């Protein structure tokens, strides 16, 4: 069993890499042709208990008790084998404690638990507090975390204000700032200062980097539920976690970040200008369309809130317990 101590910073350097293909660490063109885990059915070889099941969860068999969620196998009503559900005291199939049901009907690790553990970690807290003091700078800063537990400080912005976050097969997650609006000086030499107004939410590039980290977790021994991307801003701190099916992250269906940029801006700067959570969730739904990309807000008092879209298109907030 490959585990890291979730209280201390995670060290997965002892975990094996399984069939690491040429592709996932950034090159989208070289999928391993021998990797049949990406064709439907079966589970991956990540042996920490995460299952990235690609076959659908069976629907309740009408011959089984109504509302039980059970299916008939060899004339016996059982909880769907692919769901990770167990029978509760009422004979109903539910997720075991500590797990939640994802959009595909599969029980997965509850991100709430692991976010709460992460923010109790003194290393994480120190970094987050440091970055909170840097949201007023004219450029982004941050850290990325490797699977051996090391933290890499990030400062490279290529002459601009956006941070370069190099993702590789060893990356578990990243944390970075999105900065406040600032006076950029009189750029056009018209005698009037010009102002830059960065968007304080994950950019398309941030999102794709998170998805690359998630996808790499299928091969690098890092439990998927521990991968993350975090954005710290003066308007709130947010983190991304994944509870979906890794194989749904299909690089052939995803575009480059730059291709999403103009559409992304329409959500944040025009349609949903007053609500960046709403803008982000609608952008995710309309343009990324991968189940299981979960957005959480981390309050300064340690409260963690899950953000989702309601049927009416507004944002629902549910507290992590």
């Amino acid at each position, binding site marked *: 069993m490959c585990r890291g101590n979730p209280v201390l910073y995670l060290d997965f350097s002892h975990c094996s890499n399984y069939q690491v293909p040429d592709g996932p660490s*950034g*090159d*989208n063109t070289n999928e391993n042709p021998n990797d049949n885990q990406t064709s439907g059915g079966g589970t991956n070889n990540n042996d920490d208990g995460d299952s990235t099941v690609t076959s659908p969860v069976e629907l309740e068999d009408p011959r089984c008790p109504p509302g039980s969620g059970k299916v008939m196998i060899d004339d016996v009503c059982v909880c769907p084998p692919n769901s990770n559900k167990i029978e509760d005291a009422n004979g109903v199939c539910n997720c075991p404690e500590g797990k939640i049901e994802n959009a595909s009907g599969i029980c997965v690790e509850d991100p709430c638990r692991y976010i709460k553990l992460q923010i109790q970690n003194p290393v994480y807290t120190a970094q987050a507090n440091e970055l909170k003091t840097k949201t007023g700078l004219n450029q982004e800063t941050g850290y990325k975390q490797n699977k051996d537990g090391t933290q890499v400080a990030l400062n*490279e*912005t*290529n*002459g*601009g*204000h*956006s941070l*370069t976050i190099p*993702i590789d097969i060893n990356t578990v997650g990243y944390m970075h700032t999105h900065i406040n609006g600032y006076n*950029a000086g*009189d*750029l*056009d*030499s*018209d*005698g*009037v200062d*010009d*102002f*830059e107004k960065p968007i304080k939410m994950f*950019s398309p*590039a941030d999102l*794709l*980097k998170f998805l*690359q980290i998630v996808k790499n977790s299928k091969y690098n021994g890092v439990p998927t539920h521990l991968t993350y991307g975090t954005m710290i801003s003066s308007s709130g701190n947010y983190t991304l976690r994944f509870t979906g099916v890794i194989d749904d992250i299909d690089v052939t269906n995803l575009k*480059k*970040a*730059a*291709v999403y*940029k*103009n559409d992304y*801006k*329409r*959500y944040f*700067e*025009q*349609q*949903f*200008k*007053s*609500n960046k959570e*709403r803008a982000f969730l*609608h952008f995710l*739904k*309309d*343009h990324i369309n991968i189940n299981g990309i979960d957005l959480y807000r981390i309050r300064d008092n340690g409260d963690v809130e899950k953000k989702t879209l309601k049927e009416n*298109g507004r944002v629902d907030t549910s507290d992590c317990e």
Partner: protein
Amino acid sequence: MKNILIGLIVLLTTLSCKAQVIAVEDFENHNQDLEDGAYIKDINNVLDKYVGTWTGTYSSKNYEFTIIKFTENNTNGSLNYKVDLLLMKYKITDSTGTELVNTLGFSNDNMFVIRGDYVTSNDTYVLSYQGLDTECGQNGTIYISISNAASDVMKLGFLVDGEMGLDCTAGGTIQILPTTSGLELTKQ
């Protein structure tokens, strides 16, 4: 009585069909979500002065920008609004006349066409730029302003964003727009 009822129905129908309209020069300070069917409109034609072809030179490069005014209809997915904005296409040549980049023939919805964002309270127009090498950081914000009486001189400023995509393996790229001072352009 019948006429009163008809009048009420007509009035209610008219009111319910009246979409939200916001002048482009007022949108910077509009900090609410748009209503369905909203129109960010150039009611007062404040964008018209930018329309045309503009040329200038900076650091031994020759710049030609063509600016058009365009009404963008966003009615896909969760988006439901229209906006009047400026689009900028461009050609850059070096001192020998060799073409370095040319987007003049690109369609309006091409991601490399510079797309307008908003008018500031100082009557500067702000646009988003993604160069052909945007994957390696050739992107940022453009600011244009026209302040002379004849409206035939435009000032252009550029702020690098530098955001890089997953597929950039070469490191940060060279910027092709002026980064150290404004560019003065003359209307053709």
